[in-house]
């Protein structure tokens, strides 16, 4: 099963390589090359899975099924485009000497390490290793968030570390509880933490233990997903870290955390047979959609703004998975995809915009579209897409989520729509003032890499108008898996 090995080893090797040579010239190229290799491997893996179906590997420690293979592919893709984007971005940062060469080395190697941990977390079959990988991801990103070493960034990193560390600790307790429950059926051997085994026997697992376990896991991984009221680290981390990191944070890490929750939900649903987990997710999902909408209105920092919008969309996805059922889960998966594509694209544009303006304060960024049409249009279209404007894909998933909500939870629909309306009003006003108007921004020293932005937006547009059949039934299988 060479593909998976490649997928997991390439980023790790690249990380080591960059840890050694990251300060030399061409580190960015190595970075991109490694990401490209990962992407290719992931593509091969995907093809393999499409052909051969799910597979379990390496004495069952790893497994790939429709649910995680598409996330792996997505992660690899966004990782690659982000590496492409970070090349000119980091060069500009270096020119403005906000980053020394050694910091760049740290950045590059930690970026790859982060990709590696996420891929491990996605592909592992062992809930324990999943936890370990998540913790590792936290640590690497803590380093990345603190990259600038400014007081603000240190503070953000500290909060990120403490809050997510504590959260993750809860998740570990949950994992232990699951193990505790599983061990009584699967006997005391290492199989007791393997998701596949647990899935096989989930109906026999002890409900009370599992419900408690899910509470811990939900709070734990929910902290990383950014569910209100556990979200407080997220806007700081997004605002203070370098933009490529913000892009992968909201584009990928949140997805991975949510993925962990979903995996556990499957087990818990199987054990309880009730809609306990679902209701929990619906409640928190709603809360997480409503609260950030109101935060959005008062943001002054552009990256913070989009951080909150990420929280909101995570809430929407959580709500979707909470509702469950083929349509809602389908919509949730689709929304994961389009959100990470769109949001990372937005962060690419925002990063360059902030560099052009020399600040992240919204009021000081004006007339992007005049100074650099590509960045301006990228930001404008991206924001419209993320706000759920057709014909972009975000609308597709929101349409499915809303229609399902109307059907099954009519009381929730007005709340959702109110929140989405407020978010639209708040966010679009700010974006418009940045994109339009008389320019206050200067052109960039190095010509920006905007290919990623438009590739992402193009994909999102395509998903809005036409979902390729294989992708569709891929989602369907995954949705069936989630139930």
């Amino acid at each position, binding site marked *: 099963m060479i593909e998976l090995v490649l997928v997991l080893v390439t980023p790790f090797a690249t990380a080591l390589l960059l840890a050694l040579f990251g300060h030399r010239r061409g580190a960015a190229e190595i970075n991109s090359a490694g990401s490209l290799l990962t992407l290719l491997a992931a593509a091969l893996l995907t093809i393999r899975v499409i052909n051969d179906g799910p597979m379990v590997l390496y004495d069952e420690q790893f497994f790939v099924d429709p649910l995680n293979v598409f996330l792996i592919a997505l992660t690899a893709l966004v990782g690659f485009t982000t590496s492409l984007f970070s090349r000119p971005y980091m060069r500009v940062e270096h020119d403005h000497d906000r980053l020394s060469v050694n910091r760049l080395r740290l950045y590059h190697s930690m970026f790859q390490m982060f990709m590696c941990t996420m891929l491990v977390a996605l592909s592992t079959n062992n809930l324990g290793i999943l936890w370990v990988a998540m913790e590792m991801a936290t*640590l690497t990103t803590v380093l990345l968030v603190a990259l600038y070493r400014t007081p603000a960034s*240190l503070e953000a990193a500290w909060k990120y570390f403490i809050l997510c560390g504590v959260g993750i600790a809860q998740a570990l307790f949950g994992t232990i509880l699951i193990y505790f429950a599983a061990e009584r059926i699967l006997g005391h051997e290492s199989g007791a*933490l393997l998701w596949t085994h647990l899935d096989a026997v989930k109906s026999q697992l002890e409900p009370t233990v599992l419900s408690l376990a899910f509470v811990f896991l939900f709070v734990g991984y929910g902290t990383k997903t950014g569910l209100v009221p556990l979200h407080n680290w997220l806007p700081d981390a997004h605002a203070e870290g370098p933009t490529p990191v913000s892009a992968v944070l909201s584009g990928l890490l949140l997805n991975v955390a949510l993925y962990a929750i979903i995996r556990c939900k499957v087990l818990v649903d199987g054990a309880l047979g009730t809609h306990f987990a679902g209701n929990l997710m619906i409640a928190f999902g709603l809360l997480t959609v409503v609260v950030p909408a109101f935060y959005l209105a008062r943001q002054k920092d552009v990256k913070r703004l989009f951080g909150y919008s990420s929280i909101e969309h995570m809430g929407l996805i959580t709500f979707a998975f909470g509702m469950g059922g083929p349509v809602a889960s389908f919509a949730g998966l689709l929304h994961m995809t389009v959100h990470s594509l769109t949001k990372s694209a937005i962060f690419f544009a925002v990063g360059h915009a902030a560099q052009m303006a020399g600040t992240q304060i919204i009021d000081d960024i004006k007339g992007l579209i005049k100074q650099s049409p590509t960045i301006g249009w990228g930001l404008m279209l991206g924001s419209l897409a993320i706000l759920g404007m057709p014909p972009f894909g975000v609308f597709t998933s929101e349409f499915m989520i809303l229609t399902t909500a109307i059907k099954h939870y009519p009381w929730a629909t007005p709340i959702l729509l109110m929140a989405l309306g407020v978010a639209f009003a708040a966010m679009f006003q700010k974006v418009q003032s940045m994109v339009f108007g008389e320019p206050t921004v200067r052109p960039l020293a190095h010509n920006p890499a905007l290919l990623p932005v438009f590739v992402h937006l193009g994909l999102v547009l395509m998903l809005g108008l036409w979902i390729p059949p294989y992708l569709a039934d891929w989602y369907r299988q995954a949705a069936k898996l989630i139930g």
Partner: protein
Amino acid sequence: MSAVNASLIHAIPLSSQVINLCAAIMLLLGFAMLAQRRVLTLINLFMLQGLVLFISTLIVALTTSQSHLLWSAGLTLLLKVIALPLILHRLIRRLSVKWDIETLLNIPTIMLIGIALVVIAFNVAQPISQLSGTITRATIGIALACVLLAFLMMITRSKAVPQVIAFLAMENGLFFAATSATYGMPMVVELGIALDVMVGMVILGVFFFQIRQQFDSLDIRHMERNKEQ
């Protein structure tokens, strides 16, 4: 045959008693840390907790002859009893932060809250203990209590170092749950966890200096810049 049975019957209660004792001590230490004002003592208490953890793990390993538990016991000894306290001591010395810690709430209140937490923890853990198949029933409740106490400590401490110690204490509680309640997680997982703790510690060490540099104090109350104005 019967003798063997007898010896087993004789052996089990003792070991389980010891383990329960360890559990009790863990809880006690948890409270002690919660109440403790001085950083150095705090570190020592943490070391003691690690020691207790090591002992209980060892006993579990011996009673239920599981080789990998021995490994994890050794790991605990290495990490929690020797390495981390050392690192912490050196940090303290390098950062010269031996001052008393003021808490955000006064100690008695914190204690009362702690007791409430213990009640909740036991109450929550009760059903689990009911169906625990292992020799040690109540430990999971105590482990949960330890975790919650550590959590409370993190909330109430206003300096960076004790917060980290509390974080590690929480890790202890988790380990205790893992080992004594469920006879240890799979080896690979334990190794991973240990690795995480180690790396995390190193990163924190680096952080302390950075924070000191930027805020010329380790008082986290200075770090309230990123917020909604």
